[in-house]
């Protein structure tokens, strides 16, 4: 087991939710916010402190799409695969993104810059087809635009 996560980041989170019921998911969400993903030793600590078995934590983490057991990229690309985006060609955008980044949906580039994710719906159907890079929306995309946007992030200095 690797042992390089700074476990002290967990203390305020665990303190806040101590002895409250039904807080596992909230604690995991905040832990992930602090670490970027959920390292094994973080999960073990949560298990001990909340007195929830590690197997149950693992069951929860693997059930929900927004928990990650491996490090994610510094820039998170979230391509919307909602119905409105689908009928406006988001599948083509996905292909371009996969090709440009050299990774598949759900993966992270080797240099840990980009993670490529798809979401069921961003709820911004009027922008279809749309993707988010971190907190910015890019709507009414063409394949070419999607490529250009990603390339602009790939340049040094544009990372956030």
């Amino acid at each position, binding site marked *: 087991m690797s042992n390089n996560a700074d476990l002290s980041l967990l203390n305020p989170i665990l303190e806040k939710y101590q002895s409250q019921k039904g807080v596992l998911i*909230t604690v995991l969400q905040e832990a992930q916010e602090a670490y970027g993903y959920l390292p094994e030793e973080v999960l073990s600590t949560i298990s001990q402190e909340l007195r929830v078995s590690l197997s149950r934590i693992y*069951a929860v983490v693997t*059930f*929900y*799409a927004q928990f990650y057991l491996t490090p994610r990229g510094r820039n998170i690309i979230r391509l919307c695969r909602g119905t*409105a985006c689908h009928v406006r060609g988001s599948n083509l955008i996905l292909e371009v993104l996969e090709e440009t980044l050299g990774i598949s949906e759900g993966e992270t580039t080797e240099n840990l810059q980009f993670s490529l994710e798809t979401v069921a719906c*961003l709820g*911004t159907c009027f922008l279809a087809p749309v993707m988010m890079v971190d907190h910015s929306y890019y709507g009414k995309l063409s394949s070419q635009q999607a490529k250009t946007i990603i390339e602009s992030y790939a340049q040094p200095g544009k990372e956030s």
Partner: protein
Amino acid sequence: MGKLRNAKELQDLRNKLLAEVDTNRTCVRICMTGCRAHGAEQIRDAFNEELKKQGLDKKVEIRETGCHGFCARAPVIVIDPQGIFYQQLTPEDIPDIISQTIENGEVIERLLYLEPQTGQRITCERDVAFYSGQQKNVLHNCGIIDPTNVSHYIARGGYSALEKALFSMGPETIINEVTESGLRGRGGAGFPTGRKWGFVRSAAGDTKYIVCNGDEGDPGAFMDRAVLEGDPHSVLEGMLIAAYAMGAGEGYIYVRAEYPIAVEHLKLALTQAKELGLLGQNILGSGFNLELKIKEGAGAFVCGEETALLASIEGRRGMPRPRPPFPAQSGLWGKPTNINNVETYANIASIIINGADWFAGMGTEQGKGTKIFSLAGKINNTGLVEVPIGIPIKEVVFNIGGGVPEGGKFKAVQMGGPSGGCVPEQYLDLPVDYGSLEAIGAIMGSGGMVVMDEATCMVDVARYFLAFTQTESCGKCTPCRLGTKRMLEILTRITEGKGSEGDIELLIELAEGVKDSALCGLGQTAPNPVLTTIKYFRDEYEEHIKNHRCPAGTCKALISYYIEPEKCQACMICARECPVDAITGGKGVIHVIDQTKCSKCGNCLEVCPERFGAVTKLSGVPVPAPVPPGTEVIRKRSKASE
């Protein structure tokens, strides 16, 4: 503002706030929720900067509001008191707006909305056809108030329904009122709200919970997002009244994590309500207590199902369980629990204030009141609309929605997301109502309407929805876990041109099986998109299976891109844009697509200049052989060849 200790203090506060409102003061209402994705923040900054520069910042109020609804025209603003509606703004327009409209009252023609039907520029929001066909009840504050400012909500009559409920109605009367209003749950299933409340009230036990389902997961739906972002207190007020009526003292608002602005606004609303004594202990001195917490979802569609949602709140895998017992008897931690959708709660205050008869006066026999729909897909006026239940589908899609964008032809409107169905053209006159939609295989659902045109393949749409439900299936029950997977395999096969005789019948058989035997709503309704597309577009399925042809030209395996030699001007544009270098030819030499290399991305079709129109999509026919060697050079060089 301190804690309000009784009803009178709330009334006094409202009166004081109303007295402070200067109706002559210029107020610019900017949509800062949906339009944010379209640069609304830059518009706001430009206003603030320019007003400051001109020393007008004290005279003009810049108000950041929720969704105005007309997302297709984002970013939009309305300038009060005149109600001037400007749309598709850029920061460069702001100095003109300030010097001409705000200072001199002149209307800037070019920023007004152009009504396509009449060709007229419309000055006021209420006169735009998109708005005039609507009836805003739930959304009456959305786009008007600043959702982060509780004073705005209170000044518009906010929390007066709570006051009425607490001090002059009593729990039984409230439940009767809601029952008589005919309000049905807006989340999709349409269960009568008052009856549900009655069950929870009469359930045994002292500890009861109240839950708001804000896990709006249907792709293509964003009604609840708009309500939570644009008028969060209306949801709180509805929950407060419900909790009081049912005797619940604790509750949760479950929101999708994909909605960060909604979460932010809700958190703020909870804090404000607490500070004012409208939430917490001894609310308005009535002795009624309610504690509310926000739970953010973690990305699982099935959590929109009520028992799965409860499991998720308890910190477990969000998997549904069989009902009964219903949550009304045994819900959160085994206690009686009431779960309603965001829009349902947002309807409550107006029912309490205006009465059941007023509410029941809108809508139809089976569906009372109004319903919010989100319009998306191949439609001109993408956005959010609220209409009385029972108006014809056509009215929503064509009069309010503005129809299909130029060049397309309406094919179907998908209603109810992955649980719903496709409504074809012949049913456009049907009223938007629970029963009428169910009769043709669709559902009212949560309110997503995605319009499809001739370029949308219905087999692909069915496959798309099945792929969605199959991924989101929690795996607990066999019919859903395996049934959706097998159905998806068949649909994928068909879209790849590998379908065989009997596939349609097999799909129907599987679909009926899953529908009848799945554990929860997700599985029971997952076959709907398949069944309705087969019912109304069976010929498209057959074309795929028998002739390996995709009539809409969507299914990649069944299409080829082809450059017509007689139309090609050999301009090199498509060749340059081709990501896989599949296009050969050069300046003055007719271009040819190498079919073995082509990735069918469609770039060439997109970039070929409209006046040439040389690239076409073929399906079900062989690609013609390239022109014989020696004839591929064209003599007449067009201007675009350089």
